[in-house]
């Protein structure tokens, strides 16, 4: 019997047992769909993370201060101070910008519109370069604004829209932030979520304004002029290692500490990517295991049904042998049936997996990215499962003694 004929015979046999065939396939369908959906989910997560990291701005260095808490009423000692920002900017070569953040949460009003608990980010003019932000209207605040503690603000796109709607131009308007009136000098272009922060729903002011107007006096007394984190954007043509070394030496000198007992820590974007990748890596291998196990369970289902089928069709096997089927013909026939179950199951599983990934993306609140290679992978896994688990029943069928098989009830 040639291959096309074998396929036809296998198809007929599966078709004449429709519901059983579909139920048997279900295991493979679920297994394959699981592989695709899980890889899609982990790829989605990965894509979100990598976008977040790249969205932070390119070639970033993060300097974190480690401070020692002071006694009651005493300022904390050690760690980064605001003046470090200026010192780095002036004393380190090969950098695009140095930025610092001090945020607070305020109610913002304009006319009759009032927005509660809006993050107000106190920062420096370098912020746009470090965070890779674009200006849509007006300008970002300047060094002069910062030095003179000018009461100016730059709005995130969503905030501007909510405060002023379509009709009014935000630039030049005065808004009330907390108890302070600030003049809007610019509006940012859409940026969206990066690393869990929505840049469109924040406003940006000179950090000196935050220190002067929005820090509670209690907090200010404890913190002094300390800052938690300084961001440094390294120039494209500069050597990252060299810049880090410069910063380390500068800060150690300023803080009068040795590098072994430094009161600050320097991390690069690469360090953060590495941490994130190892997290997604273990997440992904967990998912791969779960999906793999479900495929194997599907395969065992196929083997089980094929064994039942061999027993049920013993007489058919005997008759085929009597009219001239060689053991190889019988083996091929049952192998093709198992393979067909797993491949049809695999195809349906691919549809279910791609569809399921889409639904997760649209309605499940989980970002998914279907990877074409995961479709190939799961399809070939299904084929492998079919051959592997179909082999034993097929071998058993081919080894039946025609005399015994023909007498089987």
């Amino acid at each position, binding site marked *: *019997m040639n291959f096309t*004929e074998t396929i036809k015979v296998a198809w*007929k*046999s599966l078709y*004449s047992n429709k519901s059983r065939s579909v139920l048997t396939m279900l295991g493979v369908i679920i297994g394959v769909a699981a592989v695709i959906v899980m890889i899609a989910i982990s790829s989605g997560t990965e894509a979100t993370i990598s976008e977040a990291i790249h969205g932070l701005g390119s070639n970033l260095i993060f300097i974190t201060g480690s401070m020692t808490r002071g006694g009651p009423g005493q300022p904390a000692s050690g760690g980064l101070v605001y003046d470090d920002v200026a010192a780095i900017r002036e004393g380190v070569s090969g950098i695009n910008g140095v930025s610092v953040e001090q945020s607070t949460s305020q109610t913002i009003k304009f006319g009759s519109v009032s927005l509660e608990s809006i993050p107000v980010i106190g920062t420096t003019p370098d912020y746009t370069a470090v965070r890779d932000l674009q200006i849509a209207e007006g300008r970002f605040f300047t060094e002069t604004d910062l030095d003179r503690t000018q009461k100016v603000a730059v709005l995130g796109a969503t905030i501007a829209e909510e405060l002023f709607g379509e009709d009014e131009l935000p630039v030049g308007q005065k808004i009330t932030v907390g108890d302070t009136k600030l003049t809007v000098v610019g509006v940012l272009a859409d940026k969206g979520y990066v690393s869990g922060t929505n840049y469109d729903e924040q406003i940006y002011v000179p950090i000196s304004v935050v220190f002067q107007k929005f820090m509670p006096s209690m907090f200010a007394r404890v913190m002094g002029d300390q800052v938690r984190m300084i961001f440094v954007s390294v120039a494209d043509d500069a050597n990252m290692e060299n810049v880090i070394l410069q910063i380390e030496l500068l800060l150690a000198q300023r803080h009068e500490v040795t590098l072994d007992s430094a009161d600050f820590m320097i991390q690069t974007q690469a360090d953060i990517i590495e941490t994130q990748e190892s997290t997604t890596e273990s997440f992904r291998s967990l998912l791969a295991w779960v999906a793999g196990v479900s495929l194997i369970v599907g395969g065992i289902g196929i083997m089980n049904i094929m064994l039942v089928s061999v027993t049920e069709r013993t*007489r*058919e096997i*005997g*008759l*085929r*042998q*009597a*009219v*001239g*089927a*060689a*053991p*190889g*013909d019988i083996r091929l026939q049952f192998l093709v049936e198992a393979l067909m179950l797993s491949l049809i199951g695999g195809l349906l599983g691919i549809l279910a997996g791609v569809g399921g990934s889409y639904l997760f993306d649209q309605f499940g609140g989980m970002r998914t990215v279907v990877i074409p290679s995961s479709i190939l992978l799961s399809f070939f896994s299904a084929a492998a499962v079919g051959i592997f688990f179909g082999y034993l029943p097929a071998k058993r069928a081919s080894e039946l003694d*025609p*005399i015994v098989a*023909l007498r089987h009830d």
Partner: protein
Amino acid sequence: MSDRIIIKTENIQKIYGMGDIQVAALNGVSLNIKEGEFVAIMGPSGSGKSTLMNILGCLDRPTEGRYYLNDEDVSDLSKEALAAIRNRELGFIFQSYNLLPKIDAMENVILPMMYQREGKFAASQREERALAALESVGLANRAHHLPKELSGGQQQRVAIARALINDPVLVLADEPTGNLDSKSSIEIMDLLHELHDRGRTIVMVTHEPEIAEHTQRVIHILDGRVDKDYKNGYRHGKLSTHETSKTEEAVESAAD
């Protein structure tokens, strides 16, 4: 009948079991069956006639002795080679018909052609041949019926068409009328006679003496040996013309 020998066995033995406990199902059977003979093999159950039939049908191999089928020594062939011999040289008719239940009469008849090694026919030719074979057993109009839609006699006729489709040198019938009522039995025996008249070599196992009477030669097997081997009163022609047939009498009385 020619003088050409289709079946030649030399001192065939079939021994089951291993170690000390050995049972000889066949204990030295030597036979010659010529082309065109119609032979009945008889014997009580346990006599070894089924074992002999299995060996003659290349479903089993003798432990000792030689078996020449159509001048070819098939005693020691592999399973694959035996399958090819069964496909090319043999046609089987079983007591329980053994049609595949889920395919129609025509597809059942086509089945042996699917396993042909050489000279395979194209799909359209196979259908033509199957239809012709069904026509020769009077079932051309039932070609697309499933086995369960056919009577026992009709199913056995489909099985005969299947047995003949690859033009075998030997037709082996194992109790072909065992599951049939007397009327259908007569139809089947008539059909076998017709095949014989056209020159087929037929070996039939039966335990019904009335059926065996209508062959040319009866071989009695007892305790794994040939007990008697004799020619009997076979005449050409339809079974219904044999006045002595009990089967036929029963049918006649049923017909009245």
